[in-house]
């Protein structure tokens, strides 16, 4: 079965040189694609989780009574929201990367403590996190003052009111916008190619640099993979949204 599929595509590449699906019949290229896919998935999952954590913490800090704390959060948001993620990646890896300490695992080669993958995770998480802060803040602000008052009149302190009343409600309000931002984040992971993170785009570009006839086939695969990846994310988020829906509340 697999053999005949591979034969078919090998045939296709010979008769139709612009459609060389080399990653289907050449196991070396298949491995490169799978490595890239795995890296893309790791980048996406880790960055999604970190960016949500950054968003929640940032939104809480933004409600701080201390002015300087709010200013720091605001500064962070402005910086990451108003500059292109591509430049952020380059800046983190090439500029900040110079100043991080390095170590020598084999006593020979000096390796920086934070690898390019590490920088990509940091940079992309903070990029998406900046948007998440704003998303969660708008959710928190959507919780009516009167609901918080009811909670406080029952003797709950500010923290308890936050944990048990404000956040659960704010989170539900935030989910649709969060959904959008996380979709964007997953797509932005492709930009990690500029600091040579071996994710899917990096691997596929390498393949068609080696085998120029594979270019079209590589692009097709790129689209397909992202349609499926983002599709899974959206499906999960929608299911989550439905699960969190409160009967009789909101739309």
């Amino acid at each position, binding site marked *: 079965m697999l053999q005949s599929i591979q034969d078919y595509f090998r045939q296709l590449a010979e008769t139709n040189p612009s459609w060389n699906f080399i990653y289907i019949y050449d196991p070396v290229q298949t491995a490169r694609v799978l490595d890239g896919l795995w890296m893309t998935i790791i980048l996406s999952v880790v960055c999604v989780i970190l960016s949500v954590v950054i968003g929640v913490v940032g939104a809480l800090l933004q409600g701080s009574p201390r002015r300087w704390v709010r200013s720091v959060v605001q500064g962070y948001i402005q910086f990451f929201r108003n500059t292109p993620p591509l430049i952020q990646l380059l800046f983190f890896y090439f500029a900040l990367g110079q100043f991080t300490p390095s170590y020598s695992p084999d006593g020979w080669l000096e390796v920086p403590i934070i690898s390019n993958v590490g920088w990509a995770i940091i940079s992309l998480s903070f990029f998406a996190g900046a948007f998440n802060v704003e998303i969660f803040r708008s959710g928190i602000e959507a919780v009516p003052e009167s609901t918080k008052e009811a909670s406080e009149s029952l003797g709950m302190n500010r923290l308890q009111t936050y944990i048990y009343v404000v956040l659960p*409600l704010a989170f539900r309000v935030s989910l649709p916008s969060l959904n959008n931002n996380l979709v964007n984040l997953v797509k932005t992971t492709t930009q990690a190619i500029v600091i040579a993170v071996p994710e899917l785009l990096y691997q596929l570009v390498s393949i068609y640099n080696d085998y120029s006839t594979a270019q079209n086939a590589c692009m097709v695969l790129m689209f397909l993979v992202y349609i499926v990846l983002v599709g899974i994310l959206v499906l999960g988020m929608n299911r989550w949204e439905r699960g969190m829906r409160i009967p009789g509340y909101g739309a």
Partner: protein
Amino acid sequence: MAESKWTPKEPMVSAKDVHKSFGDLEVLKGVSMDVMKGDCVCVIGPSGSGKSTYIRCINALNPIDSGSIEVEGQEVNDPHLDKLELRKKVGMVFQQYNLFPHKTALENIMMAPMRVLKEPKDEVETRARELIKKVRLEGKEDSFPGELSGGQQQRVAIARSLAMRPDVMLFDEVTAALDPETVKEVLVTIRDLAEEGMTCILVTHEMGFAREVANHIYFTDRGVIVEHGPPKTFFTKAKDPRTKEFLSQIL
């Protein structure tokens, strides 16, 4: 906090010369009132007369500018006020119910005793089910606020407040947002409470209820108490022209 020296012979809630301003607007211009244990007091008056502000001051939702409010001997006008201690004694029900929309009726009632008083769950649940019965909402335990009518939500709100076993209950225009038909079911619940000896302070426009259930009525206008007395004399022998005018408009 110092032990309370309060005895049931003294007023349970004692307000003396309470002043409160919002910006330039002085809403309370020296309000004084004594409420004894077991009293049911109605505060009536035209809109904007400061009556809601006043009862919100009693549980420190609005801090007062000067004067004194003592609840069972605890001074509310105190920068080091132990709000938790105060709010354990004072329950409050709002015009807009302000239930927690993401919690079922039962969970709404159970939240504060579990989180604030740290009482064991099954004990709280037993009490919550009894309270549901008391406000005549059997079968609605697992309904969310959005699935309940206004009158039902308001009764859950009353039960939620009672679950903290307060000594005095504040009702802030609790029937103002309800249909005429559902007003009664809420008033009956409050009447039952008053008859059981719960100390109640109501801000209300329900003159029939005030006449029937209250043992003392206060008429406020423009931030002062114009006239007060037991319902019998208040409704028939009002002396102040402003009281007479108000009563003639609504009776």
